[in-house]
């Protein structure tokens, strides 16, 4: 029996769920068992941070692929990728709170307020939180035109994420620069939209 288009989409969605969850759970499992290098906290923060950025890049690649390269079926995966991006960012933030500063709320708040790269990271988190809440179909329908406007804020998120990554490294900036370049390419596909905002 030939696989229908729906089944095909479903299979890819299951694969995305599987990959994102298995990788995440696996890392935490290793870290809990002290089996993720000498400092599992640092390892978890790096994994969830880079993972979130990768998922953000993937979700922002969908629209250009659909619009310019006509991979129309890809549109089905955009929301899922965006939601997993948020899950990884949430894991990143909660791991920082729980395992890095270990619920020292004073330190946690001070760091977010005083360190610019932490502030940028936190703003990006809040935006992604709003985007996640409003991705529920019912809310999306109620929001009508303002939904699209709100979801354009994701472009700010990728800029903030680039700065956050760039400022967090100690000396070698190659990797953050590669991510910033990819972000710029993704933004360049939206130059007309962005241009309208800044006019």
């Amino acid at each position, binding site marked *: 029996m030939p696989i229908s288009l729906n089944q095909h989409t479903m299979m890819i969605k299951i694969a995305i769920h599987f990959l994102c969850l298995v990788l995440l759970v696996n890392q*935490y499992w290793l*870290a*809990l*068992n*002290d*089996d*993720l*290098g*000498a*400092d*599992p*906290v*640092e390892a*978890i923060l790096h994994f969830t941070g880079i993972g979130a950025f990768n998922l953000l890049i993937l979700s922002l690649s969908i629209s250009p692929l659909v619009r310019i390269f006509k991979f129309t079926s890809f549109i089905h995966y955009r929301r899922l990728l965006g939601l997993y991006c948020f899950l990884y960012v949430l894991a990143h933030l909660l791991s920082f709170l729980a*395992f*890095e*500063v*270990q619920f*020292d709320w004073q*330190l946690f708040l*001070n*760091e977010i307020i005083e*360190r610019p*790269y932490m502030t940028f990271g936190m703003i990006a988190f809040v935006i992604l939180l709003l985007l996640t809440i409003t991705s529920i179909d019912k809310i999306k329908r109620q929001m009508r035109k303002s939904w699209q406007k709100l979801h354009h804020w994701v472009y700010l998120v990728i800029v903030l994420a680039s700065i956050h990554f760039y*400022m*967090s490294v*100690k*000396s*070698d*900036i*190659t990797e953050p620069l590669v991510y910033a370049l990819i972000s710029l390419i993704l933004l360049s596909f939206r130059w007309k939209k962005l241009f309208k905002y800044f006019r």
Partner: protein
Amino acid sequence: MLIKLPPNWKIPSNEVTDESVYRQRRTLLKSMGFLGAGTLLSPSAHSLDWFTKEPKVTFETQALQYEKQALGQQVLTPESKVISHNNFYEFGTAKSDPFNNSQGFKVEPWQLKVSGEVENPITLNYDDLTSMFTLEERIYRLRCVEAWSMVIPWVGFQLSSLIAKAKPLSTAQYVAFETLEDPKQMPGQANRRLGGGISYPYVEGLRIDEASNPLTLMAVGLYGKTLPPQNGAPIRLVVPWKYGFKSIKSIVGIKLLKTQPPTTWNRLAANEYGFYANVNPEVDHPRWSQASERRITTGGLLARNRIETQMFNGYGDEVAHLYKGLDLRKNY
């Protein structure tokens, strides 16, 4: 002074851990004449490694003879973590890179030259490093500028003994240190991206009174054995009241100077890393707080290991007098 040399049959107690015994099993097999069998077994052993994630230690360390120090209340960082979580950009910037990229490092022959403002310049060869001075164990806290810390049983001798042997002139005000430069052995020096974009050779410096302080150690070993390459074999500096980057590794040159020498991290980012780099909970790194630190021992992700950072890393009684009248906010 009574120098206690342990008899040959006596194994230092810190070697009597499951892990280090486990680690030495191949050496043990070899010494028992099982080399042939070992070679036959190695392919399957490698495939097992993939599952057990056992680090592949191929660099051979030797047991040292030294005066032991009592552990007291401190909890040591396990040897497996001390040798696998390193900042040694010559071998790569990720914490696991130094371990993974340094196992073939050659420490013999080695030359350490002591020169500059001295009456008696000396060159130490590989064997001199462990035989010229009586070795003693020093259990020190190591506080990294990145706000994590370890407790490590070093083996070594006081830098002051070495300086005394070279007979410093009264003009000697500073001591400069230099790491080996050998891009063939150190991939981080051959490739700018791997090496984190810092300029090599790595250089560090101390004031002569800091260098002469009894705490300042030239370490040739840890956990009772000679240093593995990732920890700075065959000889490194350990300055326990300063951030870890001051404790320069794999030293080939020590030069006594009239003026303050340049230091690697200060050259790279002077606003973040000063010449003194004393551990100081009151002066933050521009990008993070230095008020507390995570002590790396055991326990995985859930370990409650955040502790308050102490002034001079808790060594104030021994070193605070060196900085009387110095503004430590300006001279960070």
